[in-house]
């Protein structure tokens, strides 16, 4: 459904020197490598999360896949089309939602934008009504569609953006930071909506987000990108196996234990009696557990994986220049 091979994108950026004459007459431009020979495939009905720090190349990838940007080199095929050609048949099958950007007409109720999209996507009356009913029902937003957009809160506006973008039942949906700036309740509503939409319409969804929570709750597959290169492409569970070398061991002590004994395991990362937490190397786990059983009286013992956020953070830090 989506095939990307050796995709490269270079931005030409004007660099200010601070010298007025030079900035006007002798401009300097710099080439910024936004994507560096990126390759991946995405199948039908997949929900893929794109993760990366600012400037990693996430949004650029999405913009090339949707035909907004022209790639510097490489091959891109989406639904069998070359996106930049902007064929109507292609554009009718995709949709793009960007957090804090809008397609809604500011002064008018959202229903006016929906009616416009009905004509743009050539939806017949019956299909339009059916889809609108379904989508507004998922969001419980039946009354909001009649309110002028400028009167809606950010969360409500985002719901309307989603409805406008999905009325035509796109096969591929690009979501770029869809929950940015929203409160936790609206974030939850948007996440549930994405989940329900994918289940109901069997759409392929590519999601970028700064909130790992979005990706953890929605995507089974994760693509981690940094400085235009893919660092990881696989499932959420495999990333822990592959890149996590740490385990967290938490103990609820039965009675106070001498520090020397505890320090034999390692320096605790938190210690306030009765709770003590150690961060240990994964390979040391059997010996550590054996030592605890043998030397430390405890009421409860818990072993946890390293948090996915930390794994990803470490991954980015290891790939710094």
């Amino acid at each position: 459904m989506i095939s990307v091979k050796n995709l490269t994108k270079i931005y030409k950026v004007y660099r200010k020197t601070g010298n007025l004459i030079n900035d006007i007459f002798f401009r300097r431009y710099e080439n910024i490598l936004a994507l560096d020979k990126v390759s991946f495939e995405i199948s039908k009905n997949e929900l893929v999360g794109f993760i990366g720090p600012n400037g990693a190349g996430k949004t650029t990838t999405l913009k090339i896949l949707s035909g907004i940007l022209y790639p510097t080199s490489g091959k891109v095929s989406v639904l069998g089309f070359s996106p930049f050609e902007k064929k109507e048949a292609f554009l009718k099958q995709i949709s793009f939602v960007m957090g804090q950007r809008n397609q809604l007409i500011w002064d008018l109720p959202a229903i006016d934008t929906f009616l416009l999209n009905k004509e743009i996507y050539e939806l017949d009356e019956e299909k339009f009504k059916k889809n609108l009913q379904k989508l507004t029902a998922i969001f419980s937003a039946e009354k909001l569609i009649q309110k002028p957009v400028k009167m809606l809160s950010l969360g409500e506006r985002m719901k309307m953006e989603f409805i406008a973008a999905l009325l035509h039942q796109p096969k591929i949906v690009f979501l770029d930071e869809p929950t940015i700036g929203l409160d936790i309740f609206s974030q939850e509503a948007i996440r549930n909506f994405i989940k329900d939409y994918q289940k109901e319409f069997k759409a392929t969804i590519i999601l970028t987000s700064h909130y790992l929570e979005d990706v953890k709750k929605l995507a089974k597959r994760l693509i981690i990108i940094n400085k235009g290169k893919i660092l990881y492409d696989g499932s959420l569970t495999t990333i822990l196996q592959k890149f996590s070398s740490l385990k967290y061991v938490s103990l609820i002590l039965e009675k106070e234990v001498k520090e020397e004994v505890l320090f034999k395991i390692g320096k605790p990362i938190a210690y306030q009696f009765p709770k003590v937490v150690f961060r240990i190397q994964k390979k040391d786990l059997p010996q550590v557990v054996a030592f605890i059983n043998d030397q430390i009286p405890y009421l409860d013992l818990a072993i946890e994986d390293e948090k996915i956020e930390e794994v990803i953070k470490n991954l980015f830090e290891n790939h710094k220049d």
Partner: protein
Amino acid sequence: MFKKIKRNLKIFLLFGYQSLKTTGQSRQAIFLFTLGKILRFIFLFGVIFLVFSKTKIIAGWSLKQVVILYLTFNFIDTFSQLLYREVYRFRPQVISGNLDLILVKPYHPFLRVLVGGVDFLDLLLLVPYFFLLLFFIFQEKISFFSFFLYLTLVINGLIISTAFHIFVLALGLLTTEVDNAIMIYRDILNLGRFPIEIYQQIISFIFTFIIPIGVMITFPVKALFNFLNFNNVVFAFFISFLFLLLSIKFWQIGLKKYQSAGG
């Protein structure tokens, strides 16, 4: 093909309808905007009469001919503003990144960024301009052929105006640094409200061959009064075709080089 034209027309009309609904939201703005335009029109009309109270001919043009030229200018200018108002809002669309959401829609982007914001306030002025123009034209002894050629060259002028607007859009894609490129176009166009012959030869040459505002406005009126030879008529059609072609090419280059906000 017919189906596609019908669909595009339907979308254009819907954009127009929504633009009308949006305009209708602020009645004070409608009043002030229209008043300002009427005052400017009357003031410049007065200036023409004032100048001709001191002389009978300016650069070979009589009072009535200059009045018709001034009205032709107003008609072409107002018609362009009515149709291409959205161009004035293009730069904010690029900077905010909202243009991206237009580029992923299954229609030609011109439907939205060029003609997607018809300004109905200009229609209020276009109607009186049109009738005033007819009133002055029919006071002259004009042959049917001259009138027909005049109309054709007015349409030709509108094509050049379209090309100018597309150039402005393409420039907006290539760089966000050129603030209000459309205002540069308007300032240049304003020089065309008088016959190009009043300017020095070099400026007159520029306004004919390089920035053809003379072809847009002076040529139709010259044709009306049989001042335009055949070669110039052919040249007028050629330059509008060339300008339109170049502007579309420039737009396509702009799309390829477009970097998108926050990309």
